[in-house]
């Protein structure tokens, strides 16, 4: 038996680039010790990762670390999309962090290094071909975030948020590992495709109570990561306590990571007739609870956090179609997976734009504040408020935020193709609840400021309004342009998601 494996380094290039970025950031911080240089290196590295992933992904699917037909590293269409999106999101979040880092609220080198590490996890995640790689990648994505959440100096809320996040996340990881171990005990395999084949070919394995338990535990563990109800309670506290850019990262890249992990096991490993009902239930609960609780929020970031819980429900919804036999035909299944990925891509663009909007309308290094702090922001910063408003309207799924509209349309379409009309109706009605609070925030931007609130006082102290640098405005502009482009040409996303 040949124990020396041939390793396809081209397939691994995205991971090399991401990990290299992290190392380079550390070295730059050590040797150059200039915040500007560190941030620039991190941003360039992340951009390079995006470009490299796109180049590798442009070719045919590449596999490596194979045992027989089963491979641990499969860099195909979806892996490319995930790697590019995560890397670009990292660039965006770095841009959003610039004012906070300048204000000295967090140590620059550590911050950029941790972000690059987390990006590495995200890049690897999409290509994972076995449960171990998948869980390790997911942990690499999450682990740096425990620190990043708590990295706001002198903030008790930040420390609390970090502890909450850490405890919940460790429990989730344990559950996921337990699920993986149980599956291994049942089947003797860890490769996703092998698991899928084994469970499909041997119905007696599937009927074992242990298998059901393993599937349930695995799904629950991953549901924690996407903050699906009832495993969502950590998200609002964590988002609100974290620095704004980290909250943006949590609700975009980290959520995308959770979804990709969930998709990987659902699509390739687990029997759809067992996962389908669980996912349908999770989706309904997640969007309904998320939307209803978001209605009552007064703090901006908490509202966005609950809304992002609800959005996770929409992302999961197409997978709920697997609950019905009509949704388990090959065609309907691939449509459902593609719809989930497409929704996630539309969503992360809009969510990044929304967080960039909050950051751009708030003083440097500040938290999200309350909705009252945003009142009348459009009078002070018409363009920034317009971009923020567009992102919110997009999240609500209405024109002129066409990207969000097409995202909802994609989900509804996939559900109806899968015969799950009831779930499509639930999604549709949730969109109505969602509009209520998105509209509240958007309307607040243009509302007249009646009393000089804390925002006005702060604005008076700074140089005419919010002293946030140009980098944030650039991120906001780029995210907005991306959202507009995707709104006009959604076929781009649909094609990529279907690969």
């Amino acid at each position, binding site marked *: 038996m040949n124990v020396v494996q041939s390793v396809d380094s081209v397939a691994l290039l995205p991971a090399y680039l991401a990990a290299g970025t992290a190392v380079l950031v550390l070295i730059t911080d050590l040797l150059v010790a200039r915040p500007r240089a560190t941030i620039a290196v991190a941003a360039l590295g992340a951009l390079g990762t995006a470009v490299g992933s796109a180049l590798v992904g442009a070719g045919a699917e590449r596999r490596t670390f194979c045992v027989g037909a089963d491979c641990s590293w499969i860099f195909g269409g979806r892996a490319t999309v995930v790697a590019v999106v995560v890397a670009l999101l990292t660039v965006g979040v770095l841009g959003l962090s610039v004012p906070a880092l300048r204000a000295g609220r967090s140590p620059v080198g550590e911050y950029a290094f941790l972000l690059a590490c987390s990006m590495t996890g995200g890049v690897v995640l999409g290509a994972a071909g076995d449960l171990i790689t998948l869980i390790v990648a997911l942990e690499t994505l999450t682990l740096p975030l425990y620190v990043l959440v708590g990295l706001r100096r002198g903030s008790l809320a930040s420390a609390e948020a970090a502890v909450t996040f850490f405890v919940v996340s460790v429990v989730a990881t344990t559950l996921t590992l337990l699920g993986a171990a149980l599956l291994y005990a049942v089947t003797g395999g860890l490769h996703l495709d092998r698991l899928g084949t084994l469970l499909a070919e041997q119905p007696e394995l599937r009927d074992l109570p242990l298998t059901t338990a393993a599937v349930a535990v695995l799904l629950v563990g991953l549901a924690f990561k996407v903050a699906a109800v009832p495993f969502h309670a950590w998200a609002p506290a964590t988002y609100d306590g974290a620095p704004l850019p980290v909250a943006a990262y949590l609700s975009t890249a980290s959520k995308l990571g959770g979804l990709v992990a969930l998709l990987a096991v659902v699509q390739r490993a687990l029997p759809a007739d067992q996962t389908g009902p669980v996912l349908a239930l999770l989706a309904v609960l997640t969007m309904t609870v998320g939307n209803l609780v978001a209605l009552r929020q007064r703090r901006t970031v908490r509202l966005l956090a609950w809304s992002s819980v609800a959005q996770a429900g929409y992302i999961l919804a197409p997978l709920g179609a697997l609950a019905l036999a009509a949704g388990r035909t090959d065609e309907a299944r691939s449509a459902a997976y593609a719809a989930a990925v497409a929704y996630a891509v539309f969503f992360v663009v809009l969510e990044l734009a929304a967080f960039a909007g909050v950051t751009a309308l708030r003083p440097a290094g500040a938290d999200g504040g309350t909705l009252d702090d945003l009142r009348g922001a459009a009078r002070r910063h018409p363009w920034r408020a317009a971009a923020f408003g567009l992102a919110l*309207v997009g999240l609500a799924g*209405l*024109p*002129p935020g066409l990207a969000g*509209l*097409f995202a*909802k*349309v*994609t989900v*509804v*379409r996939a559900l*109806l*193709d899968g015969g799950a*009309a009831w779930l*499509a*109706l639930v999604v*549709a*009605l949730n*969109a*109505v609840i969602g*509009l*209520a609070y998105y*509209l509240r925030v958007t*309307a607040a931007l*243009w509302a007249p400021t009646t009393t000089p609130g804390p925002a006005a006082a702060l604005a008076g102290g700074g140089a005419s309004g919010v002293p946030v640098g140009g980098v944030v405005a650039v991120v906001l502009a780029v995210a907005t342009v991306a959202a507009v482009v995707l709104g006009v*040409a*959604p*076929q781009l996303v*649909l*094609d990529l998601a*279907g690969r």
Partner: protein
Amino acid sequence: MTFGQGLLVAVLAVPALGAVAVAATPRDRAARLVGTVAAALTLLAAVPLVFGGRGWVAWSADAPAVRPWHQLDLAWVPGLELRFHLGVDGISWPLVVLTALLTLLCCAYTMWRVPDGGSGRALVALLLVVEVGILGTFLALDLVLFFLFFEVVLLPMYAIIAGWGGADRRRAARKFALYTLFGSVLLLVGVYVVVAAAGTADLVTLTGGAGMSRGTQLAAFTLLALAFAVKSPLWPLHSWLPDAHTQAPTVGSVMLAGVLLKMGTYGLIRVAVGVAPEGARWAAPVLGVLAVAAILIGSLVCLAQSDVKRLIAYSSVGHMGFVLLGVATLTATGIQAALIGNVAHGVITGLLFFLAGAVKDRTGTGTLAELSGLRETAPRLAGLLAFAAIASLGLPGLAGFWGEAFAVIAAVQVGGPLWTTLGVLAAVGGALTAAYFLRLLRQVTHNRPSPAVGQVGPGLAGAELTAWVPLVLLALAIGLAPTLVLGVAEAPVDALIGVVSR
């Protein structure tokens, strides 16, 4: 690209670009002028759509039921079955012209008076965006595109109410947005129920059912009809309407009542009935009963109203009831009545809201108890109000007559105990309509002038006359020559009835 296709594009592109130009023009008054010019150009592009393209209307067994005079079909998002497919025919053209006309009048009116709340520039830009959405809805021949344009209207209209409305505007605007979105998400689900079953979103192909099973058609019709019932609005889903109409600024009320509601009835005819005829036949009695309930309840509520704008708003519920009754009969007469009722309601209620706004602006109150004797101090305004009210109550010779009369006739013609009863009840509702409008006139125009009315001068501004005269003339013209609307609509309605009753 042919001349007709160019016109189709222009009808949407001119107001869209106009809105951008308005937003980009720094000076308020100049911006409003730019917007008015854009609206005028849109009207100029909409009117000639009627010419040409009708060479091949000759009937044949396999001709599609929708035969647009002009059409434009471009690919957009194949993954979602969305094509940029526009077309115009006799059912949509009168509504397109009505929309373009009312937007122009509203923009022109805004040149003269900007309601409190925000800049006139933003208001005009929003009006133009609303126009794009409405025109797109009327022109779309692709179901998904139809849904898209249906949604475009929602937020700009919300902003108009919330930004320039009355004292309770925020609540009213929110209610409008949530109710309407509730309708349009049902539309979304309905649209994709159809698309999933038929495999296409092309309205030309789909009209007539496209071989969809009975179950699918019933489900699709239920969803679509609910969606359009919210928009129209059909009792009991109407409760957003009085608040929104009352709180909206004058131009907002005119757009809402004049053309926004028509998106619902137009959708019902073109999409719900056309795509799911079997579902339509199944649900027709329910629709008919609800429509008559709307007529009666709307009229009775109007009798008890104490606010001018609210009364006119509720009168819309009753009038749209007649339109829906016409649709529900599923006969050529009924649908013709619905179409002309649509246009007449747009003209007359648009005028009524303009006049109510003028009364409210002058006296500072809209409460009926505080208004009386308007004809003593402002005879011309009182005369116009009387004209509009009488046109609205359906006096023969004015526009309101045809829609109401023929809806009743169509119901009686269908026959059977149910429809005859419905026809009779609708006629009773017509009498009630006369009662509340005469009550309105007696209170506002007769008696001695109240203190609020006493200070009103007799004059009318030039801008007001400019905005009102075209509507007065149209109300007369459609009343005297209904063939203006019915002539162009006859062929497409016959074709539609042909497939519905197949």
